């Protein structure tokens, strides 16, 4: 059932727009000035591309690490040898989700100092929460009788996970990854506040100096990125899960 899908089309259009904004960043800035000029200082700053690159890199690295750790830890917590750890793990996850993302980023500063590494760790930790939670819940929700049938047919624990549990939990797991990615794109904007760079620098500085152009230069690409991530992962969710 491969038909051109609304999500994909929308995502492609947005990707093109995003690419245009990044490539023609100077024209984009001029365009913004025409409509929202509050100040007329076309102060040449760091090119948008740099912030954009920092932002994407931060999101990608933290998400890849978080997915790796989160899926691993989550699966472990659903196995027989890991089931004792499930309860305490979910307590940590619940506590972690009680922290607002700016708070978590801010708390990294006293421990790890300002800068990129600290922000990256905070992003990984924050992205871990929805991933671990969804992996654990998704796998636990695989119906008992299906697992029973699979074990009764002689599947080893590894085969059980590979052929039954993970495919059936995939929808929920991908949902967790989607949440994590969207949260991460958003939280990475705040990373500017702890000196980690990214598109948030533009927004934060813009808000502080009340410079609309600056705000929009940062906010528009970030928003487009988040929507693209949401659309693509939603599509992946509906294609990969049965």
């Amino acid at each position: 059932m491969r038909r051109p899908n609304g999500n994909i089309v929308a995502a492609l259009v947005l990707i093109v727009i995003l690419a245009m904004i990044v490539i023609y960043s100077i024209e984009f800035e001029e365009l913004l000035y025409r409509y929202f000029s509050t100040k007329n200082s076309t102060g040449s700053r760091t090119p948008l591309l740099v912030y954009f690159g920092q932002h994407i890199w931060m999101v990608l690295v933290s998400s890849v690490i978080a997915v790796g750790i989160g899926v691993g830890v989550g699966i472990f917590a659903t196995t027989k040898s890991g089931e004792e750890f499930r309860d305490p793990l979910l307590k940590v996850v619940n506590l972690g989700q009680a922290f607002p993302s700016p708070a978590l980023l801010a708390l990294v500063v006293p421990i790890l100092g300002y800068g990129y590494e600290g922000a990256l760790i905070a992003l990984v930790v924050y992205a871990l929460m929805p991933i671990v939670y969804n992996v654990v819940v998704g796998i636990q929700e695989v119906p008992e009788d299906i697992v029973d049938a699979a074990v009764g047919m002689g599947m080893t624990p590894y085969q059980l996970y590979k052929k039954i549990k993970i495919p059936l939990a995939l929808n929920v797991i991908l949902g967790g990854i989607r949440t994590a990615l969207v949260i991460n794109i958003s939280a990475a904007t705040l990373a500017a506040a702890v000196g980690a760079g990214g598109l948030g620098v533009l927004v934060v500085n813009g808000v502080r100096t009340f410079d609309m152009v600056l705000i929009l230069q940062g906010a528009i690409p970030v928003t487009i990125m988040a929507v693209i991530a949401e659309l693509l992962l939603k599509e992946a969710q509906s294609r990969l899960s049965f």
Partner: protein
Amino acid sequence: MAEKKDKVLFILSALGISAFFLFPLVEAKPNRIVTGEKLFALEYLGAFGALIIVGWAILLALSLYGTKRRIELASIVGIITAMGLLFLLPIGAGNILEIGANPRISFSSSFYMQVLLLYIIISTYMPRAAWSRKLKAALGIGAFLALGVSMSMGYFESLSIIKEYGVRQRQFYNNLYIHGVLTFGSVLAGCIIAIPLGYLAYLRKRLEGRIMVPLSIIETIPSLSLFGILLVPLSGLGQLPFFRSIGVSGIGWAPAFVALTLYTLLPIGRNTLTGFHSIDRNVVQAAKGMGMSRRQILKKIEIPLAFPVIFTGVRIAFIQTIGGAVLAGLVGGGGMGSFVFLGLAEASPDLILLGVIPIVFFTVVLDYSLKAFEKYVRRIVYD
């Protein structure tokens, strides 16, 4: 069961002991500006530090030598160790007079780790303990009461975070108030907008996509971006006399309130829709058969049955908004976020904590009590 070794407790208490010895417990500064000196637990607490390590050792022993009452013992030792950790901190200040007569004590990594580990131990074992609900509640309230009373008596005076609190007491309560008003206000506004929207989507199948898709797109917009983007129309709106007179402008409470309200729409709207969808069609048919009008069905059947699910949405929106309102601090809207961002700008971890701790506290407490209320409502409605 309890006779076996407890891997979880073993690992947690082993980590606790490592954290105790390997990382600094506090950072002591002679005053606010100078960089401080990091001190390990034994350096700082001296002989008193032994009390903490005894707590950890008992936990470790409990994990290895099973007794029938391991769970209860682990909970109680966990609580005592945690309280000990907190209450010993000011005592240690007396040991480091060479740093200054009135040193400022900030928490350091070992403290955070031990608190987190103890939180995991207590929150894992307490619910399993064979104690009555009343005893558990009494223990929890007692611990917080002890903390609160000693705080108000000035016991924690030497802690830097309390010093910051002391200096900014009025600001603190003012911000707490603003944070609360912002949160309640946006959730209330969210309910007023989203519940009818959800109901409309339920009534008119055709509109479902047109209502729910925009709501979920709003939810994906990164919060800082939304706050920023809202500056544009709101500062435009602020030019008009009426809006200026009620304080609307690009900066301040207005963008925070609007953005937070927008974020509550999806959880509330979606749960309203699911709530109505989850009603058994037969019940509605039966009501129709009994001659109820459309309005009566809505009032007597549908709304009560959908209410628990809608309430879940409101709870989610609530919890999300408490945290989200931190960003109001960045756009000058006040609230606890003011401390967080001020702390970041001034490189003052204690100021950050002053903003974060109440938020986390209220999030956890509200989440717990709203969930309890939800359970109660579900019991009434469904059983």
